[in-house]
């Protein structure tokens, strides 16, 4: 029988302090019994002398300084792991909420994970066909990559993520096992429901493991949700040899929760009130994507974040961009023109693309076509800026060609149906078709031989 500590010395937002604690470990999980009936879990976030500061999952409602009994569990937060995770739904701290009872297994693992040794990583090279031209053609997703979607409120990031899930899962060859781990942090009920429906409709729901922390669920739990999901993903990928696609939405809520807890702890804020360790905290999540040498599986991450006020320089998208291997940026302007998916291709980027495309992977002209499309589309912006000053009629013939190219590029190349699954060859063919609208000497990024072959 372990010792229980009666009462508390402090309650502040989601944090409580217990005095007289002996043998507590940093980040250890404690069990708090309120009024002898309600049970809550908490995590020790600071130790000083005999005082432990505990972050309470499920909020501090009903807790008074005198009505609690607290017990140390002796271990950090853990998740029970088994292949039966697939097809199940959990809350933000890994408790089943689908009424099917707990997962039974002896294997429990610390959700904080451990850093993957760079020596044992395998550099990701296999591209995933998503069937979306803007992604496949210009910001190719690679197996084992972390490629976030930078979006704004009201933009169709969920639809895009769902389409990626639908079409990427179809693409893989039959003998490879594929599964999805879905983590929702502070999202609306409707969004979670949308994803559930999508998984059902595309027949993959038996291969999905969901961790849901909805907008009205306790804020502190959000800090754990992505770690739960990634612990499950790492287990399925590196021990069960599956290719795991992890969808994390919405990372902004995660960062907001971090700020909330940090300010309750009285920590010194850095940018916009976020704690100084926001970068490290985000990195411990994003860096848990990848491929381990000698393992069959992989963890690919698609985090979704809504940029506050569509500002890409806000700390959350900014720090994310420095950690992830590229980003897909959605644009309100394109959305306003009814173009789906409204991917703003210029700031969008896939850092792993260069090694996963070209001959042997997609087609040898892929890199050059992508570079040329980027470069030409960047010039469209200049032509438009000029047109807005001197009027379209006054533009030089070449600038007019660029305007026409820009229009077609946006509607035909970027724009496509939510159910449309384009092969990479279709995407590249379409790319060439658009480039042919421009005179050959304007195509300065393409090798002469490729121009001869395709122009």
């Amino acid at each position, binding site marked *: 029988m372990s010792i229980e500590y009666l009462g508390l010395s402090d309650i502040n937002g989601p944090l409580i302090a217990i005095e007289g604690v002996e*043998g*507590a*470990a*940093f*980040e250890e999980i404690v069990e708090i019994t309120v009024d002898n009936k309600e049970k809550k879990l908490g995590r020790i976030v*600071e*130790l000083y*002398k005999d005082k432990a500061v505990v972050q309470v999952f499920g909020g501090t409602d009903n807790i008074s300084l005198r009505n609690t009994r607290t017990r140390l569990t002796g271990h950090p937060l853990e998740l029970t792991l088994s292949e039966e995770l697939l097809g199940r739904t959990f809350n933000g701290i890994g408790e089943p909420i689908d009424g099917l009872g707990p997962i039974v297994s002896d294997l429990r693992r610390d959700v*904080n994970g451990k*850093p*993957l*040794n*760079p*020596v*044992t*990583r395998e*550099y990701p090279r296999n591209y995933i066909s998503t069937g979306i031209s803007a992604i496949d053609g210009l910001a190719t997703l690679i197996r*084992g*990559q972390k490629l976030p979607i930078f979006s704004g409120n009201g933009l169709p990031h969920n639809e895009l993520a769902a389409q990626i899930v639908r079409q990427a899962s179809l693409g893989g060859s039959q003998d490879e096992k594929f599964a999805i781990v879905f983590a929702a942090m502070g999202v609306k009920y409707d969004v979670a429901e949308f994803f559930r429906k999508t998984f059902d409709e595309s027949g993959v729901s038996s291969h999905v493991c969901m961790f849901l922390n909805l907008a009205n669920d306790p804020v502190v739990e959000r800090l754990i949700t992505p770690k739960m999901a990634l612990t499950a993903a790492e287990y399925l990928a*590196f021990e069960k040899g599956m290719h795991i696609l992890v969808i994390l939405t919405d990372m902004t809520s995660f960062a907001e929760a971090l700020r909330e807890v940090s300010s309750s702890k009285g920590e*010194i804020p*850095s*940018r916009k009130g976020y*704690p*100084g*360790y926001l*970068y*490290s905290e985000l*990195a*411990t999540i*994003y*860096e848990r994507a*990848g491929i*381990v040498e000698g*393992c069959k599986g992989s963890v690919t991450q698609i985090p979704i974040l809504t940029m506050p006020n569509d500002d890409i320089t*806000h700390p959350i998208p*900014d*720090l994310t*961009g*420095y*950690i992830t*291997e590229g*980003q897909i940026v959605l644009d309100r302007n394109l959305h306003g023109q009814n173009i789906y998916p409204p991917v703003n291709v*210029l*700031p969008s980027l896939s*850092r792993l693309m260069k090694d996963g495309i070209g001959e042997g992977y997609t087609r040898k002209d892929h*890199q050059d076509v992508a*570079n040329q499309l*980027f*470069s030409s589309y*960047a*010039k469209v912006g200049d032509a438009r*800026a*000029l047109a807005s*000053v*001197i009027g379209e009629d*006054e*533009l*030089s013939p070449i600038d007019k060609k660029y305007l026409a190219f820009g229009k077609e590029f946006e509607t035909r190349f970027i724009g496509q149906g939510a159910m449309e699954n384009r092969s990479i060859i279709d995407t590249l063919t379409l790319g060439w078709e658009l480039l042919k609208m421009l005179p050959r000497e304007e195509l300065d990024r393409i*090798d002469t031989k490729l121009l001869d072959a395709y122009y």
Partner: protein
Amino acid sequence: MENAGTIYGINGPIVYLKGITCLKMAEMVYVGHEKLVGEVIGLTKDKATIQVYEETTGLKIGEPVLSSGAPISVTLAPGILHNIFDGIERPLSEIAKASGAYISRGISVDSLDTGKLWQTHITVKPGDMLYGGSIIAEVPETKAIVHKVMLPPDTQGRVISVVPDGSYTINDTICTIQLSDGTERNLSMTQHWPIRVPRPIQKRFPANRPLITGQRILDTLFPIAKGGTAAVPGGFGTGKTMTQHQIAKWSDADIIIYIGCGERGNEMTQVLEDFSKLVDPKTGNPLMERTTLIANTSNMPVAAREASIYTGITLAEYYRDMGYDVAIMADSTSRWAEALRELSGRLEEMPAEEGFPAYLASRLSAFYERAGMVETLNASEGSVSIIGAVSPQGGDFSEPVTQNTKRFVRCFWGLDKSLAYARHFPAIHWLTSYSEYLDNLAGWYTDNVGEDFVDCRNQLVAILNQESSLMEIVKLIGSDVLPDDQKLTLEIARVIRLGFLQQNAFHPEDTCVPLSKQLKMMETILYLNKKARALVTMGMPMSVLKESNIFERVIAIKYDVPNDHLELFDDYHKEIDAFYDEVLEKNA
């Protein structure tokens, strides 16, 4: 190891001990039962503050802390090259052997392989008087680099005995000396040096030789000297890492220390894979033979991230002392500054700008001042050049890390988002970047590359600057209304941007270009400018000039002229002459 006390408080990577302890500032300690490595960063009358280089999850109040008696140091001996370490010089491949794919805590591994036998050639004989830094043995560490075993800087004495040439481990005694006080001391190949203390030198030289990188915009427009410092700031996706990789691959330094400080794990894996395959053009050996990687990825403990920069520069200074030119790639110094901020926040220090500690500037300057071209203690000449990437928040160069770095570096290679968006790489912007080494290096370029090199370079810069002021007008009224000579300036500037500044890192010829070709390219572009300008002065409209494909031909020189066939440039001069005659003839 002495017991220094027990843990009293824990906050993230910071641990407190109660009372007065035997600990010294900057001393290395072992924390808890798992013996996590830590460093003393604060001592007051009632507590000692320790930063721990590993995750503190599971650490308990009351666990013991052991003192090591020595400051946090690196082990210096053969075996550093062709290796990958974490932030406190623990070899990651050994850690992988001990703990598998993930990095566990409290792993105790030797920094360097103590069992490996090195072919050693002793260069001293009994009776020789040795001073700090004297070379006592030579060991071929890799195919490319001879490791010179030196006397630790703080010792001197007379050689009593040496071992014969042969194979020894790094801990075998290879030489015994008698110190001035009469005591004898056995020397092995190993020495230790605290990471936060610069290694001593005789004196510093002014920087007057360039670090040649094979990257046109760097070598020609904004050169860095050997022993110089440069900052590469840029928002995400602008190509900081790519620039660093290119310099690490192609620069003419003897040794490369690549510090991945708080960056992506996959990037380090890529460097490791690429550099093992790529061949050094100078020696014909794999690039890894001259490279050491220090990897503290963003998910590894934050305190070790702070240390990794110092570990890297200490290793660099050690090789400099052997007389080598060493270049350090620090990617990225912003992550290091953020580690300082994170730790400072945990220590509840008063924040200065944007939450960074007030000592940010002094730490940055202390780091960059460890670069330099020096005369070493053994009178050879060596250098440490630092190329630090900066990741400004939101790509905004006015933030504290970029601004403070700017004060202490002499080269500034500003990466530009709009260039990166248009996939103009390297996205170094020619208007925001600068190099203060131009004057120091002008003499070298004149003597070694060509007398007109500096002049050509200045003409190029002038044209680019004219273009930028013309573009202000073009943005308002379009380029059609400009007079023909200004249209020509825009066209030549385009040739410079596409044909000279843009460089394709994935093209086998274009990825690294020798200075001689860079000069020829400049000459050709300027010759075209001269001839075309003559035509325009005679009243030929630009539309006529543009009928010829000569501009496109000159742009394509970078691909069409192989690096070892520079005689082909004569043909381009003939073509330009022909173009001149043809236009004259047709429109006379």
